[in-house]
């Protein structure tokens, strides 16, 4: 093998390695960006799907991260808020029965706030109200 051949091969390998490096670098740096919440783990598409199926309990469970301080994209915020509404309704009933009047009241305040913030979802919020009312076993 001549020196020219060796040089040519090493240059080609270098170009391939440099390309791999250049392509991988933004991805690796992106992976390292520190955020409290990775929104993809909260699965906004899944939340939308369960909203369409009227599985409000699943929507409530999937939206829970925002009650823990998770930040979500503005475009998806409404879906999570609907889930928050459903979960607070569910928990309000528990707090009421368990004798935690303050917690039940705090849930009620937030529930009313969400209703005020989302007048366009009034019909959907009514359905969520109904789903919790039907879920309660007297």
């Amino acid at each position, binding site marked *: 093998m001549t020196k020219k051949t060796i040089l040519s091969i090493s240059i080609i390998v270098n170009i391939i390695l440099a390309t791999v490096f250049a392509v991988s670098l933004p991805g690796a740096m992106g992976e*390292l960006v520190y955020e409290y919440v990775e929104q993809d783990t909260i699965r906004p598409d899944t939340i939308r799907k369960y909203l369409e199926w*009227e599985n409000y309990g699943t929507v409530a469970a999937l939206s829970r991260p925002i009650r823990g301080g998770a930040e979500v994209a503005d475009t998806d915020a409404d879906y999570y808020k609907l889930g928050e509404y459903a979960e607070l309704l569910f928990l309000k009933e528990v707090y009421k029965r368990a004798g935690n009047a303050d917690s039940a009241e705090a849930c009620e305040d937030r529930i009313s706030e969400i209703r005020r913030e989302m007048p366009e979802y009034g019909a959907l919020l009514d359905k969520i109200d109904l789903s919790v009312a039907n879920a309660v076993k007297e």
Partner: protein
Amino acid sequence: MKCINCGADVRLTDKVCPYCGRVIKENAGYRADMEYYKRDSAKTKKKVREILSENIPIVISAIILVVLLIADGVLLYVEENAFYFRESAAQRESVKKYETYSAAIQDYLDAGDYAGFSAFEEYHNIAEWEPPYDDLNLLCDMAKEYSSLVSAVEEVTMFGPDAKWYRPESDIRSCRSAIWYFNFQFEHNLSKIDEDPYKDYIYDMKAKADTIMEVYLGLDEAGRDEYFASSSNKQEAYLEEVLLHD
């Protein structure tokens, strides 16, 4: 060597004696050899320079290749382990913000919102097994199970009027497991719970879990005793009866 005319010390390369001026012929052979070696050395140096100049691009390319290999390896390692780096960074952040976070945690606990607390703990990567959060360890474990129970019960009970429930059997099985696991953890850790600084919250969590079962699954105290005393098949059958046929 010595000059044979004046006896002074002269160098092997001297053509004439620097003291008496006599032409020195005795070292002519040595001087000729020296000239030959000098010329040969120049040729060798020239050849070495030529070889070097031919090989320098290969050497540089090889060095670049090694550097790029290392860089690609580092990138691959970073991509593979990014999750752990991020988690570790978040945990360090949680230690830095201990005062803020512990105040927020206390708010969740005071409100009895253990599911919210679990979400907070998870999404702020609280390192509950390390100081200064290590006293939260058992509370966090129990809150995770409580959170799973809340989710599981929500998933099998809250449906709109035109709901599609695609996997009722599977969801009911998961719900039974979540309830069983929370109660198992509570019973299993009872002695630890009694020594835990957050034991009151854990007992309250258990009371809330019982209330959830009562409110949404129709299991009052007597019903729960009977439910937990029965086999897993009977527990599942009960949940199916309550959730699918009521």
